[in-house]
């Protein structure tokens, strides 16, 4: 069996706005192993986004710890945290993932440029990833010249191209019609199987949940169910 890539331990997150306290997460513990393909599901407001943000260091827990690749990310700050995200986590958001002024190729290259990877290496990686996500020949287009499904594929390509330890996706299919969403998920699963890439994604769509190999259900900020499927 694979090692734990991500370990969330006893994490709570309390939002306080205008004196009102919301317990978005209550003592959540969860481990993600390498090469898992996990869906986090649950009704609206159950804490999916909050959990993914904490898992990726975009938000800090009120209490508890988050370890990624053996490192505690809940205590990192500033450039250290930025660099850690850049090198270890791939992100896919619901929409407007891509930088509109950069072409497809430039969007995919962005992280590699931040990492200082040479031009030759960048070019081979971009070419190969474009083929894997099925958008060859569109590398010079701007994001707005692509369909929603194609944009999400580019987002997957960007997340994968620097070989992160884990890819976190908050409702990657929410803005796509169900057929397009399903085919994006199929593609992600293929990449998971072919390259062993670890994915965690949230969704409310049952058709999407069915494509996960592990399903975690959140309810009122708690893990209500955690099951491994086929």
């Amino acid at each position, binding site marked *: 069996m694979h090692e734990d890539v991500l370990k969330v331990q006893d994490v709570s997150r309390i939002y306080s706005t205008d004196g009102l306290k919301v317990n978005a997460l209550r003592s959540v513990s969860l481990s993600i192993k390498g090469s898992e393909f996990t869906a986090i599901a649950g009704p609206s407001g159950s804490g999916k986004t909050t959990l993914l943000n904490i898992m990726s260091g*975009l938000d800090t827990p009120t209490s508890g710890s988050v370890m990624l690749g053996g490192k505690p990310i809940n205590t990192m700050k500033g450039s250290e945290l*930025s*660099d850690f995200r850049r090198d270890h986590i791939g992100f896919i*958001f619901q929409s*407007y993932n891509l930088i509109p002024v950069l072409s497809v190729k430039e969007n995919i290259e962005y*992280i590699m440029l931040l990492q200082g990877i040479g031009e030759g290496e960048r070019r081979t990686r971009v070419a190969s990833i474009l083929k894997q996500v099925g958008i060859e020949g569109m590398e010079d287009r701007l994001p707005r010249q692509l369909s929603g499904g194609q944009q999400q594929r580019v987002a997957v390509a960007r997340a994968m191209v620097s070989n992160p330890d884990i890819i976190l996706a908050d409702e990657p299919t929410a803005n796509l019609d169900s057929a397009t969403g399903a085919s994006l998920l199929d593609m992600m699963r293929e990449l998971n199987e072919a390259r062993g890439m670890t994915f965690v994604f949230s969704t409310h769509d049952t058709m999407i949940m069915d494509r996960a190999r592990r399903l975690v259900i959140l309810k009122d900020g708690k893990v209500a169910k955690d099951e491994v499927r086929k």
Partner: protein
Amino acid sequence: MKLLMKLAWRNVLRNKRRTVLSGIAVGITLASLIFIDGIYIGMFDSMIRTATDSFLGQGQIHAAGFRDTFDVEKVINNSRDVMKSLGSEDLLTGFSERTVSTAMLSSAAGVNSVLLYGIDPEKERGMSMVDEAIREGEYLAPEDLGRIVIGSKAAETLEVETGDRLVITMAQAGTGELSQDMLRVAGIFHMGIREIDGGIAFVNIEKSRELLALGQEAHEIAVKFKNINDAGNRLLPIWKKYSQAGNEALGWRDLIPQLDGVMEMADLSTIITSSMVFCIVAVIIIHTLFMSLYERMFEFGVLRAIGTRPVSMSLIIFFEAASLSFFSILFGLGLGYIVMQIFSVYGINYTGIEFAGVTITELIYPVMTIRQFTFFPALVFVFSLVAAVYPAVFAARLTPAKAMQRSM
């Protein structure tokens, strides 16, 4: 770095209308700063020229202390040697010796006390504008000892016209005895400077020497420079050279200290004007950057999330400010140049306005200087970057989760 520049640059191009509008606004402020500075310089050049060319001369040599008392006995020491030496000065275009004494002019209608200048009519032609300023009658002829030229104000007081006779009374050197003579009005001048038109009169220097019993001496030598800026430069060695053996040589800054004071005040007001201009620049830049930052909040969140460092986020903002101000400056310089060219052809009409005792008598032409096209734009650039600090810090502090939430 190149990547961040590319991002910033494309963002500037993204909302072209906003970029162009802010660019125009900043450009106009720069152009107006250039223009105001040019007008100031033009105006002061003109005022200095009016004040010095009319009669004063750009510089003067006297016996030390003469200007305090106008004591007839305080003649220039070694005036022959001084004149000989002045003749070989490269910086000068000319000089002319004068006697200066108080005198009483009386006519049937009244009396008017004046500062009577004995002049060499020929040399004085090139030195001062007395000859050009004659409105009635004529200027003094070289051998013409029996006539006098007075100003328009004095003519009014004395109720005389050209050809009329005046009695002149003055005290002689040495004895202090009064001497009197009858002179005919050769001409009446008008220079637009009240004190000169009412209080100065000219006779041939031979005549005044005779009346004052001065022999071949003189009280004042007026000098004119090839370049008027040299006359305002206190650091030139020429002033020291002629401030010796009991004489003093002074440039217009010391001869008309009130004009110098006005110039210093103008410098101050230039500083105030430019500070205001730079505040406008700062506000425009901050506003533009924040507008575009708020518009792209989600995008900034994504950039931060996928690993862009806080410092790099600031850099993006600084690069945007830099490219915005670069274009504004290009536009401003172009506009400033065009406006300056137009007005240096047509001029600005302030004639008749009196300022620091000097009446502006000619059209003002803005003067272009290197400073306007190097220092000012550099300041605009620096100010833009300083103004960008606030939005840049804001961008660096954005947390990705908040940024992405705010725009949804």
